[in-house]
């Protein structure tokens, strides 16, 4: 433990993890009573958020909270530690979970999805593991929760149980399990063999051990091992996972899965390797290149997608690399931007997915080309969508701008002008693929022949806003992304504490 700050011992982190698992149990138990079941879901979310927030003052005051559950293997503890980075992620995840719960209620009931209990259970467990990842104090704990997360999201992705859903879920699992089981595990083991510890530490846990070539290999094993971060070329599970119901996509993309991925990458960069070692090995540059490549390619590809969720998925791929890019710049502002983007992207992207789901619920439309004029029927949804899109583009004062600002600052601090151009052109691309959607929704006349877009699609006249459970959350998150953009202080303070 090389934290010089005061360390508190408290069971709270473990409780935060446990709450949703208990919630999952209760959800399972109340299979027959939907209202009770979803009540548990929401209740667990609220408790979790309260627990997480109750730790904020101490963490903001510079303390860390630790809790060692037990010794798993000699030398390997199951241990939680709440530090600013983890708390930031946990706050995002747990607060969005509540919103998503409400949204799920609306969505799942509106679309009459089957096996809702399984759905809510898996959802709760996946949140548990996301928080677990956030609060992990060492790589092993992180790995365990990471794996559990991959696994419990599988039924969610395959929820529809169609051929397509299984294919997508299979790809999802192949990618996530494949990379984590081989690359990540290898990286962790190599790390342990080199450093003799897996405990995260403020300046990296290697402490000068290991030769550069090996460390570089380990680093890239980590980067690609955390396939949830969707850095090319291990990103294609993400679009494939779009077969899931929309709340799941929202969870995947905004709250849990991908965020766990980038969060873990940040952990690796900050607390496994540490900025100084990263600099020494020139790993930042390489990572930044990878991330830049991912940002651009994914953005360009997103342009060509007509399926709304696919477009959002590629957007996510691109945006995730913002986080990685920021961290890999290894300058204060860059890291700040990367960390902040976890929160900012979460709130904005979840809005976008909620909107996509809302559209689906209301009209059964999934392709952008079919969405002409939908904004007139669903003004709230599409207004929220516009806000989310603006955030993605990075238009002030919406959340995304804050990130972009810091990233740009960071790129210049790092004297990496090309990175700046990457960011700027990515902004352009983001605009290019988001604005047409907004335009279509608000300004184009609805398509005259509903038959042409499939029998499922509702008649244009019949389309109206989805239920309150669907609309309220997305409006809430849209407002949230505005508010984070205007008052980023909480997350900013946490992020600053990380790079302190």
């Amino acid at each position, binding site marked *: 433990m090389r934290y010089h700050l005061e360390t508190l011992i408290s069971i709270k982190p473990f409780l935060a993890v446990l709450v949703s698992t208990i919630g999952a149990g209760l959800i399972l138990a109340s299979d027959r009573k939907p209202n009770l079941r979803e009540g548990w879901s929401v209740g667990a979310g609220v408790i979790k958020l309260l627990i997480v927030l109750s730790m904020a003052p101490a963490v903001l005051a510079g303390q860390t909270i630790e809790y060692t559950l037990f010794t798993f293997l000699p030398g390997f503890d199951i241990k939680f530690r709440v530090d600013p980075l983890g708390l930031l992620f946990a706050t995002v995840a747990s607060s969005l979970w509540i919103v998503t719960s409400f949204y799920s209620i609306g969505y799942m009931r509106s679309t009459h999805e089957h096996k809702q209990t399984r759905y809510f259970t898996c959802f709760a467990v996946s949140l548990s593991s996301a928080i677990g990842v956030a609060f992990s104090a060492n790589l092993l704990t992180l790995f365990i*929760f990471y794996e559990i997360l991959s696994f419990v999201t599988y039924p969610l992705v395959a929820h529809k*149980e169609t051929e397509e859903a299984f294919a997508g879920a299979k790809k999802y699992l192949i990618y996530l399990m494949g990379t984590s*089981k081989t690359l990540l595990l*290898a990286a962790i083991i190599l790390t342990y*063999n080199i450093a003799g510890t897996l405990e995260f530490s403020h300046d990296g846990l290697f402490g000068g051990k290991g030769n550069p070539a090996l460390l570089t290999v380990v680093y890239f094993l980590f980067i690609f091992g955390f396939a949830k971060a969707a850095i090319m070329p291990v990103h294609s599970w993400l679009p494939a996972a779009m077969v899931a119901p929309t709340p799941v996509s929202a969870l995947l993309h905004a709250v849990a899965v991908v965020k766990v991925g980038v969060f873990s990458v940040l952990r690796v960069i900050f607390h496994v390797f540490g900025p100084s070692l990263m600099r020494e090995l020139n790993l930042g540059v390489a990572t930044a290149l990878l991330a830049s490549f991912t940002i651009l390619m994914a953005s360009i590809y997103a342009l060509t997608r007509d399926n709304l969720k696919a477009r959002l998925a590629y957007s996510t791929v691109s945006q995730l690399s913002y986080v990685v890019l920021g961290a890999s710049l290894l300058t204060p502002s860059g890291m700040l931007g990367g960390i902040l983007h976890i929160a900012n992207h979460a709130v904005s992207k979840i809005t976008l997915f909620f909107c996509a789901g809302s559209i689906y619920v209301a009209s059964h439309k999934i392709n952008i080309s079919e969405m002409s004029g939908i904004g007139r029927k669903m003004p709230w949804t599409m207004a929220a969508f516009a806000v989310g899109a603006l955030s993605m583009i990075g238009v002030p004062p919406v959340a995304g701008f804050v990130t972009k600002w810091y990233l740009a600052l960071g790129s210049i601090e790092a004297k990496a002008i090309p990175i700046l151009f990457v960011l700027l052109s990515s902004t352009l691309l983001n605009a290019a693929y988001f604005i047409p959607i907004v335009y279509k929704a608000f300004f184009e006349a609805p398509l005259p022949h509903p038959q042409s877009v499939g029998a499922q699609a509702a008649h244009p006249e019949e389309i109206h806003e989805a239920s309150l459970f669907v609309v309220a959350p997305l409006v809430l998150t849209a407002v949230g992304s505005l508010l984070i953009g205007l008052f980023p202080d909480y997350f900013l303070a946490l992020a600053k504490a990380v790079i302190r």
Partner: protein
Amino acid sequence: MLGSLGEISAIQQIGPPVLSWVIFLPLVGAAILLFLKDEKQIRAVALQTVLITFLLSLLLPLFFNRGISEMQFAERYDWIPPLGISYHVGVDGISLLLVLLTTFLSVLVVLFSWKGIETHLKQYMICLLGLETTLVGVFAALDLFLFFLFWEVMLIPMYFLIKTWGGENRDYASLKFVLYTLLGSVLMLVGFVILYLNYHDFATAQSLPVRYSFDFLDLLNAPLSVEKQVWVFLLIFFGFAFKVPMFPFHTWLPDAHVEAPTAGSVLLAGVLLKMGTYGFVRFSLPLLPEASHIFVPLMLLLGAVGIVYGALLALAQDDIKKLIAYSSISHLGFVILGIFALNRAGLRGGMIQMINHGISTSGLFLVVGFLYERRHTRSISEYGGLSKQVPILAAFYLIISLSSMAFPGTNGFVGEFLILLGAFKSDWRFAVPAMVGVLLGAAYLLWLYQRTMMGNLENPKNRSLPDLDRREIGVCAALAVMILWIGVYPSPFLKIIDGSVEFIASRVEN
């Protein structure tokens, strides 16, 4: 050079000869069965026997002194004194868990066989009980002759189990099984005899009172030239490698597994295969440390090849049992890899993995057995979408699959993690295939699960499958508890192992 290091002795910390009871109680039960006719009574007696044996065996960890490498609960009686053969049994960290595993699985197996055995129930139960005796005997024997005896006798009940209650191709499978094992054990016996003669030379030179001994603890003290060690290693390698089975000697396993009745498969996979790896740990490493070092590359290579090869073959199977059989080859490759990493993490992992594999693969066979009892087919393509029809079975199946694919939080992860830790420390070139093996393991198991349990229930024959009843749930739950216990909190098990690990590691490191 060896005498000073790693001296171990045998101690007996409680009065009654519990270990012998555990060994021979099943035999007594089998003898009682001889006189019974009523099937109900046969089942009851068999169950009581295994249960009492199991409870008795629970005394062992209760009184076990952790952290030391001594042979505990040791009993020694002269048997054929002129030849230096004695009845000498005892357990240490390596064998204790295996003994427990055996008694535990025996209970499950008897419970499993409550139904489904239509012919010769009495003989069947006698075979099972006899098998238990020999298996526990193999793990407890400290006299090489006794060990060999149990090792060979074990073949008889197993042979009958496969031959009598097996599938269509059982003649071929049972014969293959016996021939393979016999061939190996013959070579092993030669190796043992060399050790024995060497001890004689040593004892004569030192003018010790006992000139001939098959006793493991005696043999430990007799130094052996490297050249001889190599020969002995090779000889007993064959004995153990056939049993494990290691890569080129594995083909008996799929046949035997497929043809054996479920109970046979369970014990075969759960315990019998461990005899080989146990042999390596028990005899090859401490008795032949230099030769072990010499053979490390070969062993690691075979282990790594076995891992990948078994996993790949598992992917190619349509027969569930065959798939699991090949997965066993892969998993035992891990054990070999861990053991021959020759460091503490690897040894620890290897030993824990023996137990894990015993639990999880037995679990898989049991689940498949449940399916087979219901549908009488092992072909994957016949199944599909069963999770709707048999949710409880599907849930247990899932837990066991996860354990087998080393999902974090289950026992498999603990073992594989430690093994990989050791393997990377030892030689990363062999660890890389192991990683691939881990991946493939996840692939074939999940694929299997998906093909059998997920999707739509398309085969109309599957529509009337009953779910697990209480007895079957009990069997599965016992396994699930063990899986999660070891997976989440493995420390108690590791503590049992640690003393012996320390001993072996110090022995081979020097």
